[in-house]
C-alpha cells in the first residue's frame, strides 16, 4: 500500500512507468501538475513523460495515504 520508491529523481524527458503490484486498484495523481493515470487494476502499468523540471508531489486518489514525490532535474 505504498509507492516504491516513494521519492524518485529523474531527468527531464525521462519516461517513468508505474506498475500496480497490489490487489486493489490505485492511481497516480497530481492535480496541479495535470498528472492522472486513471484507475490502474492489478498488474496494469502507466507511463508518464516528465518534461518540466521541478518536484511533483503525487498520491493515489483512491488511497490518499499513499504519497510519492517525483523530482525532475
Amino acid at each position, binding site marked *: 500500500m505504498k509507492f516504491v520508491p516513494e521519492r524518485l529523481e529523474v531527468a527531464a524527458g525521462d519516461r517513468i512507468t508505474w506498475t500496480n503490484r497490489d490487489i486493489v486498484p490505485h492511481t497516480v495523481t497530481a492535480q496541479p501538475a495535470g498528472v492522472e493515470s486513471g484507475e490502474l487494476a492489478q498488474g496494469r502499468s502507466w507511463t508518464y513523460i516528465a518534461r518540466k523540471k521541478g518536484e511533483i508531489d503525487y498520491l493515489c486518489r483512491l*488511497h490518499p495515504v*499513499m504519497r510519492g514525490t517525483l523530482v525532475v532535474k
Partner: protein
Amino acid sequence: MNCKHLFAIALVAPALALAQGKPGDPQIAHIVVTANQIDIDAGKLAKSHTKNKEVQAFARQMITDHGAVNKQAGALAKKLGVKPEDNDTSKALKKGASENMANLKKLKDGAFDKAYIDHEVTYHQQVLDAIDKVLVPSAQNAELKGLIEKVRPAFQAHLDHAKHVQADLGKKK
C-alpha cells in the same frame, strides 16, 4: 480447540466461540469471501444513503477494494481447486452483518454516517485480528496465505481511513 481461533471467533460472535476448531483452507477461503462481501454490501448501502462526501468516498473505496480482493480470492480458489466451505465463523460474520444492516436501515443522515463508520472501524479491526491470529497462521496453502498477507495493508489502510472519517464526523457535532 485452538485458543487463538477461539479468541477471534469471540470477537465476532461470543456465542459461537465453542463451535469450531482450526479452520482448513476451504473454510478460510469462505471466510475471506464472506468478510469481503459483507463490506461490499455495507458500502453499497452507505453509498445510496449518505449525503456526506467523505463517507461517500469511503464507501466507494470499500466497494472497489473488497470487490478486487474477492475477484482475486475467487480466481485463486478456482486455480487451487479449493471449494469454499461454509462454516461457523462465516455464519457468525453473516449474522453480525445482517444485524448491522438492519440497524443502519433504520437510521438517517448524521446518525447513519456515524453508525456506518463506527461499525467499519470495529469491523476492520476485527478482520485484521482474524487475519493475524487465525487466517494466516491456519492457512496451509502458500498461495492462499500469500493472498491474505498481501491484502492486509489495504485493510489496515481502510481502518486508518475509517478512523480519520470517524474523527471528522465527531468534529461536526
